[in-house]
């Protein structure tokens, strides 16, 4: 198929960006979206032009690195997939496709479609862990039975890949789906209880300091999340936050 691509080009963090138009032809419907971008880049390189910079690594939907805002949706029109798993059969011959980076104050653009998501790392560093050292003498893994339902719910929250689609989807650029997924995972497990209150307070503080907005309550994040992280996590985080604020306040 033949396609028109309208892609955000921006030389570096300080430069002004703009949309540029490219034509690509003979795109197979079996290609992944990123392979289509490879075809474009290969051509730009042979023409001596600067290829479009984009983040990607595993190309199997788990590392969370790829991050394109395609036709107004993070990771494009398919559901439950990252950009690298989106395939060209979701588009038609003659389509015009708009490709932009994640847009959020807390995710500054580095180049073209590449953004800086280290704000997510800093939120985890503020408390998204259980403070245990490596030890050859940890208690036996089966010493504390965990109800299967709790373990499964913790797992579901823990499948977040930290791609930032939730932030890109939200009109408030809120990171609450991301933050609440980690808060939930550890609040649901016995190992997370000791630091439960400090954790949620510190992580929310850091989230605010990074400039992410408040929850818009529209649920866009849940729909666009490639891993189907549930909004229930945000409700749980709000509960955790209020309860910790009262008892710590």
């Amino acid at each position, binding site marked *: 198929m033949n396609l028109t691509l309208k892609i955000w080009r921006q030389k*570096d963090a300080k430069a002004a960006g703009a949309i540029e138009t490219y034509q690509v032809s003979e795109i*197979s419907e*079996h*290609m*992944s979206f990123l392979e289509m971008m*490879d075809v474009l880049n*290969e051509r*730009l*390189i*042979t023409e*001596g*032009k*600067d*290829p479009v*910079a984009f983040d990607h690594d*595993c*190309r*199997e*939907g*788990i*590392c969370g*690195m790829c991050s394109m805002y395609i036709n107004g949706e993070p990771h494009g029109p*398919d559901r*439950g*997939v990252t950009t690298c798993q989106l*395939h060209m059969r979701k588009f038609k011959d003659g389509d015009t496709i708009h490709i932009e980076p994640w847009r959020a104050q807390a995710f500054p653009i*580095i*180049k073209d479609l*590449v953004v800086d998501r*280290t704000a997510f*790392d800093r939120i985890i*560093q*503020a*408390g*998204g*862990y259980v*403070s*245990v*050292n*490596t030890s*050859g003498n*940890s*208690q*036996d*893994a*089966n010493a504390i*039975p*965990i109800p*299967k339902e709790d*373990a*499964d719910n*913790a*797992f579901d929250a*823990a*499948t977040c*890949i930290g791609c930032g689609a939730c932030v890109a989807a939200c009109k408030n650029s809120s990171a609450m789906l991301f933050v609440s997924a980690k808060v939930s995972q*550890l609040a649901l*497990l016995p*190992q*997370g209880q000791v630091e439960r209150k400090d954790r949620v307070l510190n992580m929310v503080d850091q989230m605010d300091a990074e400039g992410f907005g408040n929850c818009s309550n529209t649920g866009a994040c849940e729909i666009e999340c490639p891993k189907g992280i549930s909004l229930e996590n945000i409700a749980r985080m709000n509960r955790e936050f209020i309860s910790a604020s009262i008892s710590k306040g």
Partner: protein
Amino acid sequence: MSTLDSKIPDGPIKDKWTNHKNHINVVNPANKRSIDIIVVGSGLAGGAAAASLAELGYNVKCFCFQDSPRRAHSIAAQGGINAAKNYQNDGDSTYRLFYDTVKGGDYRAREANVYRLAEVSANIIDQCVAQGVPFAREYGGLLDNRSFGGVLVSRTFYAKGQTGQQLLLGAYSAMSRQINKGKIKMYNRHEMLELVLVNGEARGIIARNLITGELERHPAHAVVLGTGGYGNVFYLSTNAMGSNVTAAWRAHRKGAYFANPCYTQIHPTCIPRSGDYQSKLTLMSESLRNDGRIWVPRKIEDVEAIRSKKIKPRDIKEEDRDYYLERRYPAFGNLVPRDVASRAAKERCDAGYGVNETGEAVYLDFASAIMRYGREKANTSHIENPSDEVVRALGEKVVEAKYGNLFQMYEKITDDNPYKTPMMIYPAVHYTMGGLWVDYNLMTTIPGCFAAGEANFSDHGANRLGASALMQGLADGYFVLPYTIGDFLSKDIRTGKISTDLPEFEAAEKETKARLDALINNKGTKSVDHFHKQLGKVMWDKVGMARNETGLKEAISEIRKIREEFHKDVFVPGTTNSFNPELEKATRVADFLELGELFACDALNRSESCGGHFREESQTPEGEALRDDENFAFVSAWEWTGDPGTANLHREDLAFKDIELKQRSYK
């Protein structure tokens, strides 16, 4: 050829690790604060090492080329992690895990290291649970296990199909805690481009800031490489796009021996290539072989009809199908080990029976499993004389519950519904057992330079068992390296800071800059990918699943030629002092082009077959891999001499004191 000393401690195998820990030098807590360690790579090995070393008090600097340490490719591991917990009471033990791993590796691993791995495996599970890793559990609240290929017990812990992700996020969270405390300084989007040696010891690295393009000098008292494997030398593999050999190769060029480069695991169940534009291959979990039957048509005219889409696979009658694994290996059938299953698929496709346009695909068919489960379900639901449609619908539900996420992934990629038509699969490069040679302390032949996880060669011999990569990465990072590195560092308590003004740093930076400038100023006519694809094709065709002397010799000269062409004609756009992903690729491919040749030389030198290394000249009359223990029971460790084609071979003889050497058979 000299013989290498692996520094295996004395004593019975079960006491070696304990005795060793009791007798090696340690650094006292106060002195640890004046010692700096660089960890390159933030996957299971690097991430676990960085966190544990920082907890001990060392000052750690950790580097990863991705935008966050949480993206390391360990994250993509699906199946699980082995540990000798014996929670299932099925007779598992440290010894049994040790035995299975040595045998699975076709008797080409070092016994003492493998025993230690089995010994610490149980600690890993305890540690991960304490971190809040949500492993799968049973209704009673205890941890669940499943069984994996090539073993007789259930010892695999898992978190659905995302075990690697959950374990990596555990290590990442431990790292994050230390970053917050200031004990780890994290360098995202930084790539190590050179190892710096001072007086023969590893004392730092040259890293490129991938955003600004700046070259940075980073000093340390020791350098740990947890930089993964080099499967991308084949261009197409299940590795992430950025996975590369550069850190290990740079260390090799500075004096670290590279061991068994030709030991590659080619995984039998991957989604086949669909066209020349393909950028990577996707693995489908080995667990599918529990219920799927692998076949190709028996008649060549059926193959042609399938390829020209005149008939569908379901149109081929039962008697016209060749279930070749069941035919060749009646005892193990579809559950033969990975290397055997991969070679058998290649054999059928080479004979012309491949079932897609490229001729490189076989069927993995769930039809009989669906009907079998359906009948079972009909029985237990007391449905009398159910029609085939009812049985099929019931069976599909059961299969969905077991493999639903994999079936969905397959459908997303191929647009075929695997409940209705057989999956198409083909082997793909997945893991490299070879890597930097290390002694029992995980130190390379460069003092102060350590290698952990897939980057080293030590534990899997010539073939890795499923669910053992995660175990080894975490064992090295959490429980081995933090102890053994102290033995080296104890002499450094009075060394003080290493200065980056030393002439060695100056020279290394200058050399690195020259290398980058050469690539940018080359202004050739072909892209980096063009050469990478050429290299990958030679590797796959001649150094892939089956190798012979003629092909390997051709490969060596072809790789040399591609390398020369690359340096003459590559075009790298942009500049060195900016964000430039093409330049990153170019530096990696330049190193792959050297490694590829050493890889082929190693395969040529090892004229036996073992595990994933199959030399056509060394096979049994039935076409199975034939080991040559008399001449090849050793590790090949190659020393850089200025050209990969003239590397010096050193050997480490493998002694099997606790396990008897046997030829593997799956008939």
